[in-house]
């Protein structure tokens, strides 16, 4: 152990499914539910439940579009989500001595 404070590691972000969703959205402007599912490899149910929790935390903005024959739920990272991910990366880097 390097002595880095574990307390600084945001356990909400640390959850693998949520982390995968956050990272996927950090590198694009916005993406829909299907794209998140494909890129993260999560089941539809997992994407829906974790995205919902991230939205409640204020990390994701969600638009449940109504246009077109196939409805499209579009997600984007909020500034709070971007900051949470950056903070998490700093903490995990410190913990791992990177």
């Amino acid at each position, binding site marked *: 152990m390097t002595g880095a404070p574990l307390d600084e590691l945001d356990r909400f972000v640390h959850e693998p499914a949520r982390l995968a969703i956050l990272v996927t959205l*950090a590198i*694009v*402007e916005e993406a829909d539910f299907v*794209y998140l599912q494909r890129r993260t490899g999560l089941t*539809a149910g997992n994407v*829906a439940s974790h995205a919902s929790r991230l939205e409640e935390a204020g990390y994701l903005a969600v638009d449940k579009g109504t246009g077109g024959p*196939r409805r499209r739920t579009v997600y984007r990272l909020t*500034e709070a989500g971007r900051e949470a991910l950056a903070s998490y990366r700093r903490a995990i880097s410190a913990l791992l001595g990177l």
Partner: protein
Amino acid sequence: MAELRRERAPRGTGDPGLDGLERANYRLALSDGILDLGVGLMLLGMAAVWLLAEDLAGLAAIVPAAFIVPMLEIRRRTTEARGGYVRFTAERRASERAALRGMLVLGMGFLTVAVVAYVLVRRGGTVVSMASIGAGLPGLLIALPLALGAALSGLMRVKVYALVALATSATVVALEANPGWSLLATGVAMLGTGVPLLVHYLRKNPLPNLDAA
């Protein structure tokens, strides 16, 4: 229904640690073969005009316009429905726009050269060598945007397409053949790659069940 809270659009990832991941995802988004198929079919259409009605070769210039909207719609209905919708960063889209502008400038430049060569030949017939070089221009006009596209996307197969267009342009000039052959060869190379890519993509990505979305 939750409303989308519009946040400030990021300029790129703004993070060197994530740039590699962004590039990989961008390349992956182009792996469905639709772009290869669309441009390949467009080139076949242009080649057909050159080869079957050389007197109407100018019509080849309008072929691309006829392909853009149908290909975008096909992409939306086939691969986007399976792989999902994504909008890349503002920085990425700015790069795409800059590349398109570059292609336009190059195209206009080459068109000017071609027109000047044509006029000179018609007036005096003293620049025959320029006229024969002009036969390679259609292929070059394709090779340069492809080279720009390869630089932008980092995709090896697009570099190969650019090389095919370049090599066939040189061959057309050397053999004093119809420029349509260069377009045909490049189009066939793109179709030959695009079809298996699309088949693979469709097999790998079945239509999702969106009940959970």
